[in-house]
């Protein structure tokens, strides 16, 4: 059986080789290890040896010809074999090499370029400190390598400048970007979490003013939009102003730091930039006040029984750390009153009125200046199903959280009725603006000790005024009056709130 001698790979990057010189001719006997040809590789001129003993039967590739590694270049007849009768053990491969030669001459350009590609690919692969054999690299390799070097240089320079703006030049670059104006190029900047929150609450981010760098809409902006979406009152505590980068020029002086005895200086005229929350409050309340036909109904409540009960209960509950507020009783009373007056627990739906199945009572919570001021409505869900202690705990939790960490959207959503209480400021009477989509809001004043008529006699007692604002599209005057009467019955006979 004859043995094919193929073009060997004589270097790690060699793809093809040129037979410079045959050291044998057909008919010569050779033995393993004999150098039969000199082959020029991509790196050097190398000696080519045979690995088997035998007679050179045929030389297939002539001196000066270049063939791919693996191509049959000569055929060896083994001991005892007739050299004249042998043929390549893989005739097809011989044909292939011939075809390749023909193709090369026909279509040299194409062949060249693909070869170059190949050699570049291998040249970049083979680096090792162990070898110093790239001194004879061909030009195309060197060229492509130097090109690569240039590219990587460019890239690293780009990265450098990015890193710089990342860490050092952030303010500068932000400033230069904000000159273009937010969305000046029509692109809205929204942080990923802000976008997600807005999507969750079906809020159109285009209506939100971003407060981040370059007008980027950030989580806080969306949270404010959600919160003020629940805004109910037109009046906002003075000085309630959220802190933001734009406010730095006008720092808020904490109330405690102001010296009351000091003669007030002239008021300085300032222009306060609107926060997102403020903008939303303005927008929503104008909408409420101008589109909802408001009317108010006021009733006075005898608070003595409730205050007496509260005192007793709080004494009993003190060891457990529970302290019920008047408002907790009101939430409970308003909620259970709904069971007799479903129509108050309803929303206007343009072509229908939706009467809700759950009684979720919103309570207006004003925010401290340190959290940017303004107010939010926390929602006590299924307040009609909760006892006083539960309501008390939940309302404390909501108020505390709203003032420290902020409420989640869920904690501010789905109210069906709202209570706004300014009694703690000593306010006797006020009216509130409806918090859509509610149809009613109860504005609660302080329980004030005053001369009262009880059982036909003048006495000293506590009275409280509460004013219900209503949407006349949903609730008529008599319905409102009946709801208030029920509420009055409950409040003046407070034991009923306990059951």
């Amino acid at each position, binding site marked *: 059986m004859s043995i094919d001698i193929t073009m060997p790979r004589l270097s790690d990057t060699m793809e093809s080789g040129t037979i410079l010189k045959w050291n044998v001719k057909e008919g010569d006997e050779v033995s393993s290890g004999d150098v039969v040809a000199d082959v020029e590789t991509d790196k050097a001129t190398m000696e080519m040896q045979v690995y088997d003993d035998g007679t050179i039967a045929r030389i297939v590739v002539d001196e000066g010809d270049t063939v791919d590694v693996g191509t049959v270049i000569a055929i060896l007849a083994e001991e005892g074999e007739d050299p004249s009768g042998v043929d390549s053990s893989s005739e097809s491969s011989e044909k292939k090499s011939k075809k390749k030669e023909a193709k090369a001459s026909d279509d040299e350009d194409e062949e060249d370029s693909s070869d170059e590609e190949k050699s570049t690919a291998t040249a970049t692969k083979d680096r090792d400190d162990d070898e110093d054999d790239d001194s004879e690299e061909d030009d195309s390799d060197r060229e492509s390598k130097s090109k690569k070097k240039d590219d990587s240089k460019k890239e690293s320079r780009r990265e450098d400048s990015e*890193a710089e703006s*990342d*860490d050092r030049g*952030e303010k500068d670059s932000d400033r230069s970007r904000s000159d273009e104006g937010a969305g000046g190029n029509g692109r809205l900047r929204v*942080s*990923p*979490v*802000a*976008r*997600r929150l807005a999507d969750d609450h079906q809020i159109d981010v285009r209506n939100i003013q971003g*407060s*981040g*760098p370059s007008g980027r809409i*950030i*989580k*806080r902006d969306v949270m404010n939009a959600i919160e003020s979406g629940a805004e109910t009152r037109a009046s906002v505590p003075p000085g309630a102003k959220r*802190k*933001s*980068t734009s406010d730095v020029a006008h720092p808020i002086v904490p109330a405690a730091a102001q010296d009351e005895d000091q003669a007030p200086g002239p008021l300085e005229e300032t222009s306060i930039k609107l926060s997102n929350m403020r903008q939303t409050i303005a927008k929503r309340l104008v909408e409420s006040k101008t589109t909802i036909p408001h009317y108010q109904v006021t009733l006075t409540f005898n608070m003595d029984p409730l205050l007496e009960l509260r005192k007793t209960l709080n004494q009993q509950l003190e060891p457990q750390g529970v302290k019920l507020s008047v408002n907790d009783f009101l939430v409970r009373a308003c909620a259970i009153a709904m069971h007799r007056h479903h129509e108050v627990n309803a929303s206007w739906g343009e072509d229908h009125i939706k009467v809700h199945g759950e009684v979720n009572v919103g309570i207006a919570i004003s925010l401290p200046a*340190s*959290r940017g001021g303004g107010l939010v409505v926390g929602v006590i869900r299924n307040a009609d199903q909760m006892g006083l202690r539960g309501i008390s705990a939940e309302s404390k939790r909501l108020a505390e959280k709203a003032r*420290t*960490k902020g409420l989640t959207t869920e904690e501010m959503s789905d109210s069906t009725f709202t209570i706004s209480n300014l009694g703690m400021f000593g306010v006797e009477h006020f009216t509130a603006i409806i918090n859509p989509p509610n149809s009613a809001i109860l504005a609660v004043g302080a329980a004030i000790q005053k001369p009262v008529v009880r059982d036909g006699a003048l006495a000293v007692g506590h009275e409280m005024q509460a004013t219900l604002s209503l949407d006349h599209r949903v609730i008529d005057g008599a319905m409102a009056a009946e709801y208030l009467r029920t509420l009055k019955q409950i409040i003046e006979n407070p034991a009923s709130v306990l059951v």
Partner: protein
Amino acid sequence: MPREIEFREALREAMSQCMRDDPRVFLMGEEVAEYNGAYKVSKGMLDEFGPRRVIDTPISENGFAGLGIGAAMMGLRPIIEFMSWSFSLVAADQILNNAPKMLYMSGGQFGCPIVFRGNNGAGGQLGSTHSWCVESLYANVPGVKIVLPTTPYEAKGLLRTAILDPDPVFFLESERMLGMKGDVPEEPYEVPFGKARIVREGTDCTIVSFGRPVHFCIEAAETLEKDGIDCEVLDGRSVRPLDIDAIVKSVRKTNYCVVVDQAWPFASISSEIASQVHKRCFDDLDNHVHRVNADDVPAPYAYNLEQEMLPNARKIVEAVRSATYQA
């Protein structure tokens, strides 16, 4: 029973307890024996274990690092002390080419259960050559575990885990912390790798760090708390394995992330964490991850320059404020 001991004593206790348990464990390094340790970490160990197990070497890091690796290939459990990780650079071929790759190159035949430990980091006015923070540089190499303890308790537990670990561990201490005191139980215990410690819970911003800068993070968090910014501080414990899950969990809660890394910023642990957080928390982020690194310059000698170069509480406070849009 816990009692208050120094960081260096905690390290020593971990080594001594392991050496009592397992005769394959030995300690080798410059000045570890007769001098009682350049930083007194191994004080008294020569007396207890003798010169065959607590071994002084010449100043020859490449040599004794390689010696340790060869001994580990034979099944011993060497602890090799680098007086400073800055000096590990002359042993780079051994600790980066041999220790982490032996198991792989031998197709699972030869593992390398070895601990390299010593001081890492700047802050002592030692100039550029002696102030290396090697964690970012070495973290690029697969096959090593890299651990940075933050307290005496952590140091003892993590070092024991390192000695028992079947793979090479780089244990990066800080000479600035060796005198730090803390409660440490007398009995042996392990603190796991790859499990971040929540040093401080918070809701407003996640701060991630490793080793000594964790203390700066705590300081910064206390300052920020006064402004109503409630930070969550994570001590990653090990750079590799990295507890990215814990970081992700925290960032999903806070929506903000600041990474504090005492090494240089380019291609660093902080850039790696930033990249992973951006990938895994993309929809939870309200701002890009902010990084606090050493400045991208060689460590200077002058006190003020060096202090300015390194991460500190002020820089962390600024970064958190910037990240949470409260600058």
